[in-house]
């Protein structure tokens, strides 16, 4: 008798709380975080205007010089006015935005993957591996970065030019449409190779803190491979500082690109990037502040929204806060 009644009541049970995977839960929470959503909209708008608008004709050629009307204020034909060589500032900001966004995202990903990997392995394994990895980080920290840049730019310049000419010959793209991007490859390598040091130390510290906790020993006792433990248990728990640091790296990488471009790697005239436009604007701050303000607006907006989005992501992904 107990059997049937047992089965019968099961069907009529009221629907219990539907199981949510961590990611679905995170998405629900992220969606409800107003600031994160507003930032998403801003980001999409900026990326759209930088990557799509320049295709249309009303955006002028960023390299076209008109000396007689240099440093002029915004007019109907030039919404953001003209820069120190009379070029249309709006189109330079948009074209520059493409390069800066690309640099920001790609190099940050490169430096994050390396940094998190090294940091996690060092923090998790401890002992000799940790010492070896951290001492390598110490060496890389103190290497004279400028020498590497000078050496690298001498070598890299040859390769990128060869690549550009090869592309120009084999595809119908014009030199001006490829050159700004092929020029960035040495930049990705240079920044990526040396900017992961900070994040590796931070991840190591968080991972060391987490590895001490019991559930990691529990996971180890279940015979999970080190790789799985790191990926599934440790890194998600160190997600907080990682996400925050990622959103901090993007602006510094974009500005770093400007410094490198002044040393011969990355963006060469007539192309430009937000970093270069801001630094040019800073030089002319007294005579024409608009040259500083206009490029700074999208730059700061992008980075603000990236940070709010990062924070929203951090809160959403935090396994502990999924309780409430």
């Amino acid at each position: 008798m107990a059997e049937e009644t047992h089965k019968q009541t099961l069907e009529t049970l009221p629907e219990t709380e539907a199981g949510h995977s961590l990611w679905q839960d995170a998405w629900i929470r992220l969606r409800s975080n107003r600031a994160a959503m507003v930032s998403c909209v801003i980001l999409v708008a900026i990326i759209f205007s930088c990557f799509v608008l320049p295709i249309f004709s009303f955006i002028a050629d960023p390299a076209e010089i008109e000396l007689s009307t240099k440093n002029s204020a915004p007019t109907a034909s030039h919404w953001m006015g003209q820069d120190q060589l009379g070029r249309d500032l709006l189109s330079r900001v948009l074209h520059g935005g493409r390069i800066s966004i690309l640099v920001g995202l790609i190099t940050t990903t490169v430096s994050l993957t390396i940094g998190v990997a090294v940091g996690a392995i060092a923090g998790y394994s401890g002992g000799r591996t940790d010492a070896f990895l951290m001492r390598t980080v110490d060496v890389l920290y103190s290497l004279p970065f400028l020498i590497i840049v000078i050496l690298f730019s001498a070598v890299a310049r040859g390769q990128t030019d060869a690549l550009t000419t090869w592309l120009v010959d084999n595809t119908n793209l014009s030199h001006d449409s490829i050159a700004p991007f092929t020029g960035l490859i040495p930049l990705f390598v240079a920044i990526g190779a040396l900017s992961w040091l900070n994040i590796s130390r931070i991840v190591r510290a968080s991972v060391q803190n987490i590895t001490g906790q019991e559930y990691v020993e529990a996971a180890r006792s279940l015979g999970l491979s080190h790789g799985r433990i790191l990926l599934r248990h440790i890194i998600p728990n160190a997600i907080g500082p990682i996400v925050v640091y990622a959103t901090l790296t993007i602006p510094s990488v974009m500005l770093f690109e400007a410094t490198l471009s002044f040393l011969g790697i990355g963006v060469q005239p007539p192309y430009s990037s937000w970093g270069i436009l801001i630094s040019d604007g800073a030089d002319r701050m007294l005579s024409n502040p608009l040259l500083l303000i206009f490029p700074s607006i999208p730059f700061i907006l992008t980075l603000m929204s990236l940070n709010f989005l990062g924070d929203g992501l951090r809160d959403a992904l935090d396994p502990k806060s999924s309780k409430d």
Partner: protein
Amino acid sequence: MVSVTVLKSSSAIILIGSILLLASCKQKSMVERANEDKIMLVGNSAEPKGLDSQLISGVPESKVLTSLFEGLCGDHPSEDNTMVEGAAKSWEHNESLTEWTFHLQPDAKWSDGKPVTTEDFIFSYHRILNPQLAAAYAPMLHAIKNAKAYNEDQRGFILCGLDENFPVEWDKLSEINFQGDPKVDIDDLKNRDFEKLNLEEKRKLIAGRGLDRLDKTPLEAIAADESLFAWPDKISTDIRNLVLERLISHIDQGEPDLYDKAQVGIVAPDPHTLHISLREPVPYLPAMTRHTSWFPVPKHVVLKHGKMTDRFTEWSELGNIVGNGPFKLKAWRFNHYIEVERNPHYWDAENVELNGIRFFPILNFYTESRAFLAGQLHTAYSLPPELLEWAKENHPEYLRVEPYVGTRYIRFNTRRPGLDNLKVRKALSLALDREELCKYIFEGYKPATALTPKVGNYTPPDILEYDLDKAKALLVEAGYPNGEGLPRYKILTTKINPSVEAVQAAFKELGIGMDVELKTFGPYVSAQQAGDYDISMAGWIGDYPDPTTFLDMWTRGNGNNNTGWSSTEYEALLREAAQQSDPDKRVALLAKAEKILLDDAPIAPIAWYTRLYLHRPEVKGWHPLLLDNHPWKHITLEVEK
């Protein structure tokens, strides 16, 4: 444990602390205090590499050195071409401008009280010309008779050519390859052991080095086997052996100093009369003696701290350095400031107004402008061109725009395909609208009509012009219609600024798209010296007020002529002008030479420099000078009440 109160209070302390400090700073600005103490605050761009006037040559160094030392002639406060008394009270020259006599100030003293005599001057010129010292600016004194031979250690000429009773005249001997053949590449052979080289390599090394530069073993090898060296056939074997024997004996004696044997044209009949004989007439010799490479150094101090030929010894350090100028060194903190104070022993001390000068090495000219406007400097080194308009509107009373003896130009590498074609170079030069460039980019500069600006009695020829259609036509004639077929050149520069981008755009209008290649200063210089460049942005500031400082650069093998261009006709004209003692004829010859240079267009001058800088009105005795060499002793600080 740190409690919240502590954290809050620490940031509070910093805030309160800074407010207190701010209040204390409100009183007199640095400049006002300096005016009272009669100390001039000068922005001097870079940190001087050192204060040994014979080993360094930069403009910032010369600003400090002209306060500590004084050449034979002094700078006139307002006129470019007139000389005033310096270390020499008076001077005269023979009719052909080749023999000069300077009479030193009778009671001139070094800043340690010791008298300044011709012994110091002879020692100084001997030291800077001494090949062991390897002074970069020694060539400034090559006008002196046999100075070049001694400086370049031409042993063959000195040991044999100058020896009267040597059996053969020098003009026959001079065909022997004494100084080495630059075209022969011996870099990889240099450091290898001579015996281990094979025959061919030995011959190559000997030809590359030349007899003057060989050690004992190769010389003996040549003595043993004549075929190792390409002797000119009209030199008989015993003459050959005599030459080799003299060179070998010179080495055996430990390569003694050849100064006396070289009979360098400097003689001092008495402690206050200096007689200089030149190899050719030099009308502008007094002006040349104002250059730091002609400054005397105190013999007794130099020798106290090392041999004559020791580089950068302690002698020119703070505490040891002694000078004959209006001021002496008081303080020197690296990258911070150099301070000089009044030198009581200076012969004209009572006419010196200032009590001291403080030089600030501020490399960032935006920082320097801010420092000036914040009342921290009397005079700034240079105003960034971007701030010219702003300065005109807001601070006209401080702004100074003065002509300067220098030219911004573009250098073509004539060995590169396309650029080896005169028409292409001409087209590129014609595509530069110099008026517009000077109006908007090189603000305040004057459009160049030639390489040499107006200097001395020389009026630059009016050759350069802007004509886009003619340029395009030339390209078609040259076989590159609208730039097709030309490789994609790179414009080499050390700084990305509007001038590079404007030039890039001008060439684009001609149909020739170019990239910009940025290199830091080191690689920028070595790339051009190795001919590893297409086009480069360049500039040159004259060392002395005479066209030759601009025209000598383009002779074959000259350190600055990296264009790969040379013209025998051009060099013949220069040599002829050098021998010409009549100033007007000389200038005409130089103008003819410049015309050849500009017609062949290995370079494309753009604009003549103008010095833009901020300067406080209370600084008196500071007048526009082409060489910007304002004599410190005539400067005064008078604040209008």
